């Protein structure tokens, strides 16, 4: 277990390092100088430009600049925003809560409704299965920005049940404000998870060990829990984990649609205004969240299925 953890951790750090290099390098090769963003296109005297270049380390070669940025980032200092001169670390700290709450809420919806719909529709062929499959087919084809518009128009404009914009205060306020964004974000993922759950539970039901357990007269509940669901859990965990990991980035879309102050909408705004320190920092945070979630899912495999060799790369 220790060797597996060490190896997984090394891989995690290596991919984060490479990702940080890619994120920093991408901005380095960008056409146009960051100075233009700072000055807003005004012509400044050369001496002022040199001071600015020195301040943002633009007069240094790429590698020292990257190492400088990386070591600052590891100390929690992501520099200052080019647009409003706020500390990037503070900006992220003030906004990441909303994104984490949104992802957690959405993840919960995906796990609960995805699994429930998938398992019920696998175990109840016929009418219930047909209805659920129809619903999930529609949901699969619903991108989150379309779902966001439909939800706003129905629940915020027509029925006026839920607020359409903003973060909300307190637990109740947060839940009220995040329900529509979370549902919009979860819709297509719920459908995906339920389809995978349905297929893998159906497959397990036809397997020989399940037939054997049934023919030996074990209660249906025991067969389902110990022989069907346990074995079906592996593919379900894979798809659920991947889906939840990718929510961190997809959250940007619904944060924009519902005017939430998360890091996703901050990334979109920063990208539009070429605020490179903010873009770099948030990209790195999102990649880190994605990679760490995937690593946690890998650990979960080992706990779910003792046959999974710890240390063997999950292909």
């Amino acid at each position, binding site marked *: 277990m220790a060797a597996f953890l060490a190896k997984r951790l090394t891989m995690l750090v290596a991919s984060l390092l490479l990702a940080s290099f890619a994120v920093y390098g991408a901005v380095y*090769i960008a056409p146009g100088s960051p100075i233009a963003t700072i000055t807003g296109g005004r012509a400044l005297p050369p001496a002022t430009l040199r001071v600015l270049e020195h301040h943002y380390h633009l007069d240094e070669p790429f590698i020292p600049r990257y190492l400088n940025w990386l070591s600052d980032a590891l100390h929690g200092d992501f520099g200052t925003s080019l647009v409003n001169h706020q500390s990037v670390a503070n900006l992220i700290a003030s906004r990441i809560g909303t994104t984490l709450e949104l992802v957690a809420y959405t993840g919960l919806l995906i796990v609960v409704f995805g699994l429930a719909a998938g398992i019920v529709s696998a175990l109840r062929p016929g009418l219930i299965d047909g209805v659920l499959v129809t619903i999930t087919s529609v949901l699969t084809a619903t991108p989150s920005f379309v779902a966001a518009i439909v939800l706003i128009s129905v629940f915020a404009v027509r029925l006026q049940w839920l607020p359409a914009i903003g973060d909300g205060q307190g637990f109740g306020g947060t839940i009220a404000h995040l329900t529509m964004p979370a549902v919009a974000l979860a819709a297509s993922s719920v459908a995906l998870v339920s389809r995978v759950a349905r*297929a893998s539970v*159906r497959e397990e039901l036809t397997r020989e060990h399940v037939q054997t357990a049934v023919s030996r007269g074990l209660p249906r509940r025991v067969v389902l829990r110990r022989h069907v669901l346990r074995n079906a859990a592996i593919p379900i965990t894979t798809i659920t984990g991947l889906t939840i990991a990718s929510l961190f980035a997809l959250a940007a879309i619904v944060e924009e649609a519902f005017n939430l102050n998360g890091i996703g909408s901050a*990334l979109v705004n920063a990208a539009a205004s070429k605020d490179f320190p903010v873009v770099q920092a948030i*990209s790195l945070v999102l990649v880190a969240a994605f990679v760490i979630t995937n690593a946690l899912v890998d650990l979960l495999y080992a706990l779910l299925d003792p046959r999974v060799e710890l240390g063997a790369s999950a292909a």
Partner: protein
Amino acid sequence: MALTAPSAAPAPAPATVRRSRPGAGLGVIGTVCAVVIAMAVIAALFGPLLAPHNPDTVNLAQAYVGPTAGHPLGFDGQGRDLLSRLIVGTRTAMLGPLVVVALSSLVGVALALLAAWRGGWTDTVLTGAMDILFAFPGILLAVLTAAVFGPSLTAASLSLAIAYTPYVMRVIRSEAIRQRAQPYIAALEVQGSRPAPSACGTSCATSPSSSSPRPRSCSAGRCSTSPRSRSSASGCSRPRRTGA
């Protein structure tokens, strides 16, 4: 994997489209879907000719006006005809995803076959690079590209194509490695078939693509006796690596 296993389907087998009769076996839902797709393709191809009005004519007096005769979808915030904008915009909406799917499939399949056939260092480096790329969600890559190169359809399509390549490559590579170990590949190698044709002509056809899983057995039989494989079997007989 689990989704394509034949034993997993007690329900009737998925309808396969046979080449001799296109459209056969689509059923009612399939036909409706095909019609919708065909309409979208026609709108994409001939959009500007089909649009009843100029999609860019601004008439602020009609801003947000609902459906009227001649304007079945009404007007947008600047008083432009929505139906015309919808029809003309279909081309952009279809072109982007088309580029993404075509490019990521092309690059993903090529890299996957290269990795599966060469093995060793090539495989390690390519798989490692794809794992790193995997850590970048597509939307993040697209926003990053927009930040760096400015927002445009080309930049968005290219970055999404790059983001989806690892998904294609992962699926195709594992299938290509499986197929590589199959006896019919060994048979082709014994006959002196070059790696490239046997990889492209045979394994591609037998590998289920990520978007359209189909029964493997029939296509394997068809392709291993395809004229391309037979003609290449009579080609040069350089020594080649054996085994997987």
